[in-house]
């Protein structure tokens, strides 16, 4: 037989589980979502109707079906998504057993567990806010289980109150709980996020990046923002050409020569997580941030690929001289022995015309400028002699085509050249005063070595599509080539409005990411240093400090809560005085019965028709106001006390 009291619990548990599971819905296999919805719908229907709770056989059958489904979907792997699906299925089945208090508590704990699985998968401001909501709902369910007679609304408010009260301790623990570098045991972390450039560059690679709307990194400038023609973000350098593609080649010296320069720019880069270890810097970086090194070709290599957003501060010279060429850099002249003969010939022609390297470079740029080259995202396929095909037949390509062919020509004419892959340009976010660099800003250009000047950037794209440099890729390409997200700035006011919203949210989200998501060991050290506690990496000092802070918070919390109960103590004092008053009367034989209310008592006194009756009535009136009414004014308790103390039987 089912009792109503058992059914009362089902609804809040269901709500808590649904709220907790909701963010995962799109990522879970469809059958699991449908299965959970069906199971919960079934339980909800039962809770509303007269039907009994499912018996043991039904439960076992449903559990068996669920397990079967899981095994069919995932095999026996224990991966991340399999685990989350398992928890989801458990959440689906749990409400079936709402019979005992223990079952219900376990169901609520399961809900808390679901919330944390959300946090593993997503990591942004939106899910953080949702987490607070989920916790409030689940805690409301927990309170309701322990007080089924109460109203769910009250319990939700109570839950919110508790969450708010818990916030200070949460913040303190978050800031001060000892963080360690690395992990407790070396769990291999799977690569995460879009990889961007890889270690090789084939024709078409950059074009593929451009159609991606993701954000590559954000930059906050501490100096004035350089002009758009200087916004080259250096990522990776390609040294070796094998006839088909350009690769980085090994080894590259691991320490960079110091460069000289001027027009120093300071900035902070917030890099999105990625699968490779290249960080981006404005041409040309002077130093490397912690946990990274500046390579011989002035690219930044991180010690490990960032699984989450990282921030680093850099300084760059936008006008620079990299100094003398090193021996190992002589590979910048190497070409495959055969192939692209036409291009080699062109290069030789130029060499004979100009003995001066700089003049040759100008000649080459002029060639691109005046030979009807077209800048396009979708160039035709090229044959075996890529460079020849591109330069002499097709003449249509994206930045990597121009960079690759230019570098080839330079090497063929005896000038050391290398290709640099990275990003060019960026969009300032008006709300946040920082620059967003998207994947669609991906770019490739060339560096040539000129005597006396070092490695100098030459961007052949500027010769073909100067708009790309000054205004970005959206203006340089023809409209029908552009991916959808780049079109439309002048289309509908709605898209403009939408753009504003995106900017606004990005600004908030970025601040959140900066201050919160990336908080870890180094930030904690910085915070401790700022607080005046320089601890180095002394873990024990950190832990002690934390314990002290926690104890302080505990005492503070206790103090606050006990002060809050001072309100009840005030009523206690009132009560005590009233009891004193009753005792006085009792001594004269006017005894108040234990359950006799104050008004009844007053009536009784009045009946006696004694001279002190009026005074007694006043006292009782004030007592009722203090105890049952609005509480009276601040001084009333004291007044009450005095009235009781001065009460005499002989008074008029």
């Amino acid at each position, binding site marked *: 037989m089912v009792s109503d009291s058992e059914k009362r619990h089902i609804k809040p548990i269901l709500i808590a589980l649904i709220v907790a599971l909701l963010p995962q819905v799109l990522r879970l296999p469809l059958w699991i979502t449908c299965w959970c919805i069906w199971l919960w719908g079934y339980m909800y229907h039962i809770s509303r109707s007269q039907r009994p709770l499912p018996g043991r056989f039904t439960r076992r059958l449903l559990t068996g079906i669920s397990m079967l489904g899981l095994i069919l979907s995932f095999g026996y792997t224990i991966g991340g998504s399999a685990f989350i699906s398992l928890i989801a299925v458990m959440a689906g089945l749990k409400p079936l057993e709402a019979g005992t208090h*223990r079952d219900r*508590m376990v169901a609520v*704990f399961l809900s*808390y*567990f679901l*919330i*944390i699985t959300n*946090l*593993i998968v997503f*990591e942004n401001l939106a899910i*953080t806010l949702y*987490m*607070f909501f989920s*916790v409030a709902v689940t*805690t409301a369910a*927990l*309170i309701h*289980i*322990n*007080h089924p007679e*109460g109203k769910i609304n009250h319990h939700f408010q*109570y839950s919110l109150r*508790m*969450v708010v*009260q*818990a*916030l*200070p*301790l*949460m913040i303190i*623990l*978050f800031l001060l*709980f000892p*963080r*360690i570098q690395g*992990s*407790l*045991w070396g*769990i291999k*972390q799977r690569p995460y996020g879009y990889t961007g450039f890889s270690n090789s560059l084939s024709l078409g690679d950059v074009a593929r990046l451009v159609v991606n709307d993701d954000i590559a990194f954000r930059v906050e400038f501490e100096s004035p923002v350089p002009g758009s023609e200087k916004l080259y973000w250096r990522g990776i350098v390609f040294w070796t050409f094998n006839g088909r593609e350009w690769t980085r080649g090994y080894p590259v010296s691991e320490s960079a020569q110091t460069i000289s320069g001027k027009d120093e720019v300071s900035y902070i880069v917030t890099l999105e997580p990625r699968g490779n270890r290249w960080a981006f810097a404005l041409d040309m970086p002077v130093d490397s941030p912690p946990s990274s090194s500046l390579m011989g070709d002035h690219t930044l290599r991180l010690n490990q690929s960032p*699984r*989450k957003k990282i921030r680093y501060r850099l300084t760059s010279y936008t006008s620079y001289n990299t100094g003398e060429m090193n021996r190992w850099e002589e590979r910048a002249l190497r070409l495959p022995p055969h192939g692209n003969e036409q291009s080699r010939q062109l290069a030789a022609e130029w060499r004979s015309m100009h003995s001066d390297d700089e003049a040759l470079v100008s000649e080459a740029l002029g060639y691109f400028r005046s030979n009807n080259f077209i800048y396009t995202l979708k160039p035709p396929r090229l044959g075996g002699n890529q460079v020849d095909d591109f330069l002499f037949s097709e003449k249509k390509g994206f930045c990597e085509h121009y960079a690759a062919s230019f570098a080839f020509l330079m090497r063929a004419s005896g000038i050391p050249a290398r290709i640099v892959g990275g990003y060019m340009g960026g969009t300032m976010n008006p709300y946040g005063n920082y620059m967003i660099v998207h994947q669609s800003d991906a770019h490739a250009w060339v560096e040539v070595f000129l005597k006396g000047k070092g490695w100098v950037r030459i961007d052949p794209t500027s010769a073909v599509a100067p708009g790309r440099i000054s205004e970005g890729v959206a203006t340089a390409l023809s409209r029908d080539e552009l991916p959808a997200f780049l079109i439309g700035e002048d289309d509908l006011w709605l898209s403009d409005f939408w753009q504003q919203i995106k900017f606004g949210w990005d600004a908030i989200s970025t601040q959140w990411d900066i201050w*919160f*998501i*990336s908080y*870890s060991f180094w930030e904690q050290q910085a915070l401790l240093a700022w607080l005046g506690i320089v601890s180095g990496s002394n873990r024990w000092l950190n832990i002690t400090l934390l314990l002290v802070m926690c104890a302080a918070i*505990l005492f503070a*919390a*206790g103090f606050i*809560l006990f002060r809050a*109960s001072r*309100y*009840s*103590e005030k*009523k*206690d004092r009132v*009560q005590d005085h009233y009891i004193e008053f009753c005792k006085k009367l009792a001594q004269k034989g006017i005894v108040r019965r*234990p*359950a006799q209310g104050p008004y009844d008592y007053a009536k009784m006194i009045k009946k006696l028709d004694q001279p002190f009756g009026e005074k007694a009535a006043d006292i009782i009136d004030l007592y009722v106001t203090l105890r*049952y009414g609005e509480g009276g004014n601040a001084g009333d308790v004291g007044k009450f006390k005095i009235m009781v103390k001065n009460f005499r039987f002989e008074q008029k």
Partner: protein
Amino acid sequence: MKSLFPHGEIVKKKSASVPATLGQKHIYIVPNWYGLLFLLILSGMLIGSINYNNNLGFLLTFLLGGMMLVGLFHTHKNLKGLRIVSVKADPVFSGDTAVLECLVSAPGHDRAAVSFCIKNEETVTGDISRNADSVVNLPFAAEKRGAFKPGPVQVKTTFPLGLYVSWSVVYPQKTCIVYPAPSPGPALLTNDNAVSHDNGETTGPGVEDFQELRMYQPGDSLQRVSWKAFSRGQGLYTKTFTVQFGSDSFFDWERIRIPDTEKKLSAICHGILQAHRQKIPYGLKLPGHTIPQGKGETHKHRCLKALALYPDFY
């Protein structure tokens, strides 16, 4: 869930007796099994967060940890200040379930899901509002007759989170009078002259009052037959009479011949109840204690109390 933690025996001397306000000194609070399980889950979350360096995981763990700590204060606060103003236990007969009526008041704020129970007895759970004093009825078994002091009252709650159990013990000083269970026996109302019989008849000097007619049974005195009714052709009926007792009718301990004390007390109890029902005045003569004749509820209770407390009277 049965708690395995020791309750209440710890501090006996300073424990509160009624009227009592539950205060810091008397309230204990301990995590229960669910609280420990919750801590285990939190530890798991914490380790996972450290290992994956997931800041959101840390945030959730610390939020839940903070909330658990806040819950500690809330659960404690649910009991703190609760007043057991007075208790009362109406007398019952041996074998019945007595009820300890506790008047409970909750100054300052409402209390939710507070459980009261007498040790080893049934638990009563409810909410106490701050505006009105509540009466909590705690049943307890009253086996033996006599003055019974109900065991300590344990006040317990796990509200709001169900992760802690907070309790306090109150020792009510009231006693409950347990009357002997009535059982029919030859307990006779006597005075020095008249005797009351089992069949309800009484004989003796004094004015005889007609009581009722009943069927003639062989052996009845022919003098008692109602000839009037017989002459009307209604059959043979015997008249029964009662004697109006004067001020001398008592249940006399000495005169009643039942060897076992308890049975004797039970029989007298039964007799008293009967006399009370029939509205006959009666008195009680126990060795060392005499209760003069009387009628009515108060008198009945006085006599029953004397029976309950026998051989002590106070």
